[in-house]
């Protein structure tokens, strides 16, 4: 394995000092002179026509500067996929409890809140529908009148011949699995500030993961030319996908700033962050697997109903990913998939870490465990029998290059001591058990939406240092550090000689955003290209000045020298001066990636899913079930992730640790409880994410497969880290107490109830 100077080292983050000293400025920390504060009036009805909104009293409250409703806006619908646009920033019809109906800007938050109470809305209640199966039925209340039904997307996919595959199977297993919503809980609440300058140009500071896409979407929704919009992403306190799409907050703040002529800031309360942003899509999956008695998979089939909530957001693509990754995992020649994305009158789903694959993997990996048991086979051996391998093309035409699935399974099993796992299926006292689950996801986003762009540029500064300008969004995952490492490696300098300009649409080359685990690969390739170009230009100058050819030179430790003749060298500072003052040609080069290139794929089912770097992984959980209380504790955890070449092991481990903890939360303790369309637990007391007291011992394992296309061979990891976690935990619970939970979350109430039922059955 090649050893690099900077790449592959666990360097401290480049922004760590700002964060540990409290100096880092987040959008929520910002104030501008003359700034006003905005608050939103939200619908208390899950489904209602808005007949009239009377804002006269609210407008008269001293300190209130503007009150806006839908009629004060251009009413241009938006969504992630423009042709599927179904949403207004301020609505004219309420489709979920919490939807924005009116907005107020005032001198302070307290005054704005008071004004909300003075707004009178006349609603005409309509019949709501909360269950996706009910919503699919003919005659169900129509949530979006411009559509034929509440089915927002329908996917069918057939590969090979499933009838034949099942007919040739020795055994067939089938079952139904239900996954629930999840709340993102980023620590920083969503925040946006909008300000117009004297010439009418707009600047927006926002806690967004995708500033360039936000700029495009604001231009469309607000009717402002894109050239008149600048979007800046300050430090951001977590995203996990909730900040990838435009939120009604962003255009609302722009409308207010335009109407008043002063900067306007809006911050969501924690309650709004829970109940009025997004959630993970809940699913019901019926899965069927056909297998030979030696464990070879012959055919698999899934029928999935996914709860969209009231609006599309990322829903259509999430269902497509559910289809693509259900299908792509394992060597299986015959596949059938049918999926429905259904509107309901609830808070809508968004891009949530793992994006449809989390739901698909829970269903598939739980059923695979049942297959292993049915065949009398070790669950690990069953997976190994069917693993994807480097160079495979899956039945749904996903092209695999680097693949560390086998290694992930084997190495995590060794680290966990899988051969010595507890396996008694007791139901008395404390019972321990272990379970595993593996998976596949993209390591570079995809071109599913039509684009997958990232750009960067590097300026060779007068003193020989480098200014790296990149559009990629640092959201806490460590992209600023990793991308600086890539640049530093190519340019032969320590990381602190790379200065950064980030995520400002006026100053940095465009980047689609941080989502889809795409940044290390896509932005990394852009940085690599820019750095290689700069390096080539520097070597050209050096070759001329040192009277030699470029091939004879090496760039290292801040100097260019002739190989084998270290005294014939020039420092970067000397070469920089030469570029500015002798050559009169400063070196500023850019890089850009928008691949993979030349891929045909189905835009709905994602057959031929356009990613050229797939990530593979296996996780193993050990649980301790208290049979008297039903409480499940995860005690030990091993997580092996194929990341291609790891650029920064400390950051990669951090992603694994954080993802596993988020996955355990989703499996066991996090439950977004909806009652008649209302989220009844929109706070940290009642929606339980793990605290420091709840974490298991976690062993992160980085599998390096060296991807042929990624920067230094790297692939992304950000979402894979929580994709197999819940099925690993559920399989471990089965192993411990012989009860299989097919509906998440596995709360202690459910466990206790199931244990009691089993005990009664045994007695009777």
């Amino acid at each position: 394995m090649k050893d690099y100077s900077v790449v592959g080292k666990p360097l401290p983050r480049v922004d760590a000092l700002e964060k540990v000293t409290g100096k880092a400025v987040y959008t929520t920390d910002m104030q501008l002179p003359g700034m006003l504060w905005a608050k939103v009036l939200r619908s208390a009805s899950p489904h209602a026509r808005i007949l009239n909104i009377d804002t006269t009293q609210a407008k008269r409250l001293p300190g209130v500067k503007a009150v806006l409703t839908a009629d004060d806006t251009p009413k241009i619908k938006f969504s992630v996929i423009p042709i599927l646009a179904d949403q207004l920033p301020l609505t004219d019809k309420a489709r979920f409890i919490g939807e924005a109906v009116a907005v107020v800007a005032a001198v302070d938050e307290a005054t704005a809140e008071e004004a909300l109470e003075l707004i009178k809305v006349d609603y005409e209640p309509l019949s709501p529908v909360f269950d996706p199966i009910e919503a699919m039925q003919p005659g169900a209340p129509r949530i979006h009148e411009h559509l034929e039904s509440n089915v927002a997307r329908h996917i069918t996919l057939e590969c090979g011949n499933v009838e034949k595959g099942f007919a040739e199977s020795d055994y067939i297993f089938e079952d139904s699995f239900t996954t629930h919503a999840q709340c993102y809980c980023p620590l920083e609440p969503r925040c946006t500030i909008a300000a117009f300058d004297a010439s009418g140009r707009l600047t927006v500071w926002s806690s967004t993961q995708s500033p360039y896409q936000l700029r495009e979407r604001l231009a469309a929704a607000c009717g402002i030319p894109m050239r008149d919009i600048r979007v800046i992403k300050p430090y951001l306190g977590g995203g996990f996908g909730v900040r990838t799409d435009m939120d009604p907050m962003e255009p609302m703040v722009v409308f207010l700033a335009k109407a008043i002529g002063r900067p306007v800031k809006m911050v969501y309360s924690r309650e709004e962050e829970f109940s009025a942003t997004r959630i993970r899509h809940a699913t019901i999956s019926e899965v069927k697997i056909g297998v030979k008695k030696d464990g070879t998979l012959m055919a698999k089939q899934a029928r999935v109903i996914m709860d969209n909530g009231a609006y599309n957001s990322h829903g259509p693509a999430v269902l497509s990913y559910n289809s693509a990754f259900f299908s792509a995992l394992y060597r299986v020649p015959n596949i059938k998939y049918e999926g429905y994305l259904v509107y309901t009158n609830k808070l809508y789903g968004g891009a949530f870490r793992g994006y449809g694959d989390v739901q698909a993997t829970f269903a598939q990996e739980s059923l695979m465990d049942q297959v292993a048991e049915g065949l009398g086979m070790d669950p690990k051996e069953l997976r190994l029998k069917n693993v994807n391998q480097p160079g495979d093309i899956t039945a749904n035409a996903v092209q695999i290059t680097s693949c560390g699935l086998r290694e992930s399974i084997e190495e995590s099993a060794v680290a966990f001591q899988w051969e010595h796992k507890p396996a008694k299926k007791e139901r008395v006292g404390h019972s321990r058990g272990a379970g595993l689950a593996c998976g596949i996801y993209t390591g570079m986003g995809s071109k599913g939406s039509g684009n997958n762009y990232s750009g960067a540029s590097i300026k060779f500064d007068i003193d020989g240092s480098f200014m790296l300008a990149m559009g990629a969004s640092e959201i806490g995952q460590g992209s600023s550090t990793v991308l600086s490492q890539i640049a530093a490696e190519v340019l032969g300098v320590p990381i602190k000689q790379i200065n950064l300009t980030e995520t400002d649409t006026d100053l940095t080359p465009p980047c689609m955003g941080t989502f889809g685990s795409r940044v290390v690969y896509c932005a990394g390739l852009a940085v690599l290209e820019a750095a290689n170009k700069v390096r080539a230009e520097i070597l050209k100058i050096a070759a001329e000045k040192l009277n030699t050819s470029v091939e004879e030179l090496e760039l290292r430790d801040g100097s260019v020298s002739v190989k084998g003749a270290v005294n014939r060298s020039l420092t970067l500072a000397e070469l920089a001066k030469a570029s500015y003052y002798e050559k009169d040609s400063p070196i500023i080069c850019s890089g850009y990636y928008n691949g993979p290139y030349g891929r045909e794929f189905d835009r709905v089912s994602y057959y031929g899913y356009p990613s050229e770097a797939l990530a593979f992984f296996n996780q193993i959980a050990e649980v301790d079930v208290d049979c008297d209380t039903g409480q499940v504790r995860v005690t030990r955890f091993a997580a092996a992730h194929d990341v291609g070449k790891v650029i920064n092991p400390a950051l990669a481990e951090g992603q694994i640790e954080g993802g596993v903890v988020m996955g355990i939360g989703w499996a066991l303790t996090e439950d977004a409880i909806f009652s008649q369309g209302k989220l009844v637990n929109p706070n940290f007391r009642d929606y339980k994410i793990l605290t420091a007291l709840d974490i298991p011992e976690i062993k992160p394992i980085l599998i390096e497969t060296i991807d042929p296309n990624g920067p230094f061979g790297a692939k992304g990891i950000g979402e894979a880290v929580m994709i197999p976690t819940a099925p690993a935990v559920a399989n471990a619970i089965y192993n411990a107490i012989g009860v299989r939970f097919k509906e998440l979350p596995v709360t202690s109430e459910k466990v206790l109830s199931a244990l009691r039922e089993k005990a009664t059955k045994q007695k009777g």
Partner: protein
Amino acid sequence: MSSRKHIVNLIINGETHEVVVESRETLLDVMREKLRLTGTKKGCDEGDCGACTMLMEGRPINSCLVLAVEANGKKILTIEGLAQGLELHPLQEAFVKSGAVQCGYCTPGMIMSAKALLDENADPTEEEIKQAIAGNLCRCTGYVKIIDAIKEAARSAKGGGK
């Protein structure tokens, strides 16, 4: 409707600030919006997440649950008061070196809770560390490297160095 105004003296990181506050204003809001010390973060404003943790008379508090008037004349330490110029506190140093920071939003509160622990107990067990930060939620790190950092800070403060 305006609430009564008071003049309070807030002693923050060794400096006294005279501020006009309303009865209902929290210490957190006065700190962030009036004094512009934004290192301490607001994550929930209802005492659940710990992002607003600072030390008052040496004890960790959720400043979103303390009224500014209650803090009148009390000695307060925030994240901005930890480093001595460019010299970091061992906890800050450890957080940087151990990879305990991702998005950074929970970090100030986490460090202040850890400081309160180490001031009282210079050699905490892992369980004691977890108890001390149980009220500081983090969504990014899974807490593993945060616990490592606090152990490292305790170790380095004891024997090896600062």
